């Protein structure tokens, strides 16, 4: 029987190095849905996958470049998850995005907005090639 999140002790749920390519993101997320996230409530499973996707997509688009490697991990921290994504690229200027408000008809620029909306904490390193996203998991909400 799977451990429920209510009793799960803190620890690493996933640590992986993937090639910077969109099909790789799909493959990893598919694996998560049926693996470590399978017993999360649907709303939380969706949110954690979405956060990981956006962090990885950001790394593919602005980070290491096609064919490079991206490291990612998901850690259970007792009351939620910490998602960490790091690439070997030169990073991007996340400070600029802090003050951006996306035009609701704009066709791009929502990745960081989603990271902010769906997380409880969002931290980039100085150079912007490493991000940590924290999401508290609501047990009772489905």
């Amino acid at each position, binding site marked *: 029987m799977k451990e429920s999140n209510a009793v799960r002790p803190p620890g690493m749920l996933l640590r992986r190095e993937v090639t910077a390519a*969109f*099909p790789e*993101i*799909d493959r990893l*997320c598919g694996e998560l*849905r049926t693996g470590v996230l399978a017993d999360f409530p*649907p*709303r939380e499973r*969706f*949110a954690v*996958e*979405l956060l990981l*996707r*956006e962090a990885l*997509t950001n790394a*593919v688009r602005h980070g290491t470049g096609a064919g490079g490697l991206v490291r990612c991990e998901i850690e259970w921290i007792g009351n939620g998850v910490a998602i960490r994504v790091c690439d070997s690229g030169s990073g991007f200027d996340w400070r600029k995005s802090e003050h951006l408000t996306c035009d*609701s*008809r*704009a*066709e*791009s620029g*929502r*990745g960081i*907005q*989603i990271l902010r*909306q769906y997380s409880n904490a969002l931290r980039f390193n100085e150079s912007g090639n490493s991000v940590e996203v924290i999401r508290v998991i609501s047990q009772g909400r489905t």
Partner: protein
Amino acid sequence: MMTNFEIRREGNCVTVAPATDVVASLVGELRPAMRDLVRSGVRQMVLDLGRAEMVDSTGIGLMLSAFNSISAAGGEFSVVGASREILELLRTMRVQQHFPVSGR
């Protein structure tokens, strides 16, 4: 060639139905097909998310792109079949103020 989406025509309305998630990997394939439909004169387009479990920021960008080009040509765009989680995402990102979105 196998595609990851289906296009259904009913009268003046065209429904685009992805067979999978509307995320960055699919958008590269879906965007030119939807653009071609608008260029060919389609003015009523429905995106059916009935088989999608996930939509990301790139997928939302695709919807806004389709809406922008169809509405500029005087047409209508809508989304149907969204899961509860996708509906919540689209509501959070305030896309429903531009075009109708309905659930499963």
